[in-house]
């Protein structure tokens, strides 16, 4: 009587065993054995994936005892993955991520101090302002590799038609506004600006006007919202609702969503991350001429640097060897290859020079590389609860302001008061 039921249970056990065909996670090599380091790369574009794999292959060819295994990760999920891997002690030996994302891990002690291991050449090659974004209490918890900046892309034909010159070392915000107004006519707008998620743009470009947004660091930081902090939203709002030179629907779109309107001549300029140049090259209609305008300037051309980084877990068993691979990765030719592939700005001048030489500065590279020179650490990058404030307070408040539903004073109050709640 019981046989069928027992058979069912036995079958379930057998099936479970039958499914057991996967590989194990392996262990650390015994002393004297060849070391294998796992490098989890988030390279996204085909060209960058190829460049990253080539770097790994070159390293492996010249370092037979320390082999690097390339593991492909995804930007979309890296944070959650790393949270678990750090907790479980299974993080890769070399971690690719952006500095804003790993700052919390560094503060929790999950990342190794690389300062004793990185070569002097690597240390000297990166500006101090960029090192500051990956340093805390004198310890360096990552090596910064690539940067992005916000730049203005222009439709060459429309700019020329309006008699707007795009030369010079910088473009003042007043000039941007004047140009946008001049280009607004006959149902076309001067500017399209995908500001669906406006906080990063506002805070990064806010540094043009010395906007700090926060005083202090960690959980003790206090919100600081004054005129400099409200300058960028005020200017965007004025262009959208006073001058009416920003195409209104673009404000509700993401950066890439705004591109079809730009290609169709609906607006003459767009402000976007410099990496958007890659989409311009791939997606612009044949014959469409575009250019990158000089870096935006308020009181300065500064923008916040949130570099991509390479770091090593504090519990890693081969920190020295991992740091040596990072040194290798940071060599000018290597960094230039991944930067050019992703249309991002290398953190070292030597790598920028390689790209400048390889591209001849065409397709906006000269201006993009120039815009990277002023990237530096922003105060919000040292604030623990910044991500919470960004999502729960700043983004909805800025969206309301840019939709003309609240005034500037209310925006300032919301940004300021919301910090108390987000930091509680």
């Amino acid at each position: 009587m019981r046989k069928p039921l027992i058979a069912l249970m036995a079958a379930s056990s057998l099936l479970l065993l039958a499914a057991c065909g996967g590989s194990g996670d392996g262990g650390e090599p015994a002393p004297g054995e060849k070391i294998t380091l796992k490098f989890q790369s988030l390279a996204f574009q085909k060209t960058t994936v190829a460049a990253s794999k080539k770097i790994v292959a070159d390293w492996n060819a010249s370092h037979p005892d320390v082999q690097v295994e390339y593991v492909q990760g995804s930007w979309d999920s890296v944070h959650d993955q790393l949270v678990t891997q750090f907790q479980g002690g299974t993080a890769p030996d070399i971690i690719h991520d952006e500095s804003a994302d790993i700052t919390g891990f560094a503060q929790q002690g999950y990342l190794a101090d690389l300062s004793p291991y990185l070569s002097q050449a690597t240390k000297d090659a990166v500006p101090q302002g960029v090192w500051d974004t990956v340093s805390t209490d004198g310890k360096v918890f990552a090596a910064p590799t690539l940067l992005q900046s916000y730049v203005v892309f222009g439709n060459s034909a429309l700019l020329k038609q309006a008699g707007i010159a795009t030369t010079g070392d910088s473009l003042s915000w007043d000039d941007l506004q004047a140009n946008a107004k001049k280009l607004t006519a006959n149902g076309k707008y001067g500017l399209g600006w995908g500001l669906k998620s406006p906080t990063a743009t506002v805070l990064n470009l806010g540094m043009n006007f010395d906007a700090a947004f926060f005083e202090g660091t960690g959980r003790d930081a206090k919100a600081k919202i004054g005129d400099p902090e409200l300058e960028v939203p005020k200017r965007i709002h004025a262009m959208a609702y006073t001058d009416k030179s920003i195409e209104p629907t673009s404000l509700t779109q993401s950066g890439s969503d705004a591109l079809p309107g730009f290609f169709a001549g609906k607006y003459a300029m767009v402000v976007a991350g410099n990496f958007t140049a890659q989409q311009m090259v791939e997606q612009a209609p044949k014959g469409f001429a575009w250019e990158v305008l000089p870096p935006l300037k308020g009181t300065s051309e500064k923008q916040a640097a949130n570099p991509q980084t390479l770091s090593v877990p504090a519990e890693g068993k081969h920190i020295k060897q991992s740091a040596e691979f990072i040194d290798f990765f940071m060599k000018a030719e290597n960094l230039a290859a991944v930067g050019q592939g992703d249309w991002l700005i290398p953190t070292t001048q030597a790598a920028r020079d390689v790209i400048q030489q390889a591209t001849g500065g065409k397709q906006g590279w000269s201006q993009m590389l120039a815009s990277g020179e002023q990237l530096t650490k922003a105060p919000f990058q040292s604030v623990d609860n910044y991500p919470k404030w960004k999502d729960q307070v700043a983004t909805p408040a800025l969206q309301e302001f840019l939709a003309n539903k609240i005034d500037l004073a209310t925006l300032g109050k919301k940004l300021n008061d919301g910090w108390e709640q987000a930091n509680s």
Partner: protein
Amino acid sequence: MRTKPAIRSFQYVAVGLYLIFLGFPLLWLISTSLKSPREFASITPSLLPKSPQISNYTEALQEQGLIRSMANSLQISIATTILVIVVSLPVAYALARFRSRLRPITNGWILVSQVFPVILIVIPLFMILRPLHLTNTIPGVVIVYMVWSMPFALWMLQGYVAAVPRELEEAAAVDGAGRARTIVSIVMPLLRPGLIATAMFTFISAWNEFFFALVLLQDPQLKTLPLVLARFVGAEGQVQIGPLAAASVLATVPSLVFFAFLQRRLTSGLLSGAVKG
């Protein structure tokens, strides 16, 4: 009673419109998978690609190890489905048929287990599986998916078992059949639509699951399909639309085949007239 031609025509039109409504996303996906990057950036997107190309498919297949990940997903989903059905069926039968104090507690636990956010349990789960060497293995993922899917599968199956009239089992008992024989010969055939529906639910849950696989699988050779699809999304909202659409089209094929296979067996009405009303 015959349906009037006008009403029948209206029914056909309604069904046709409904099918178009249901099929449009798939049509749009297929169309997108055949478009060039320049067409994605058009301000007036067209329903059909102007110059269809298969480069998105070749790119998806070459660059991302799509086929291997599909095979992994298929292996995991089928193993999970079989295990869930085999283990859930006797439990569901017991819960539906036997009165005991454990029953409300078990049902309560089934409901409560559905409210835990995945992020809350993933780290403890990881810590349990690691010493057992079940992280970064397909069996580890199958076990997790099985545990994750079983409460709802139990809940579904319990309802189907309860819908089988007790009178049929009593009649079988009168004819001399024991409990096990009754389950195998009487209940199981009548439960077939319920088993198929539960299997479909379990398969889809496992096929689409992302987070557990992300955390548990690190070896590139073991990555499942949702993990590979996520690779087409980059930082700052960048998306490789063409290859992603192509990969998504390919990803729907195994589940469509699975559904086509099972759907033919998803018949209802077996119980009609089984007992005298």
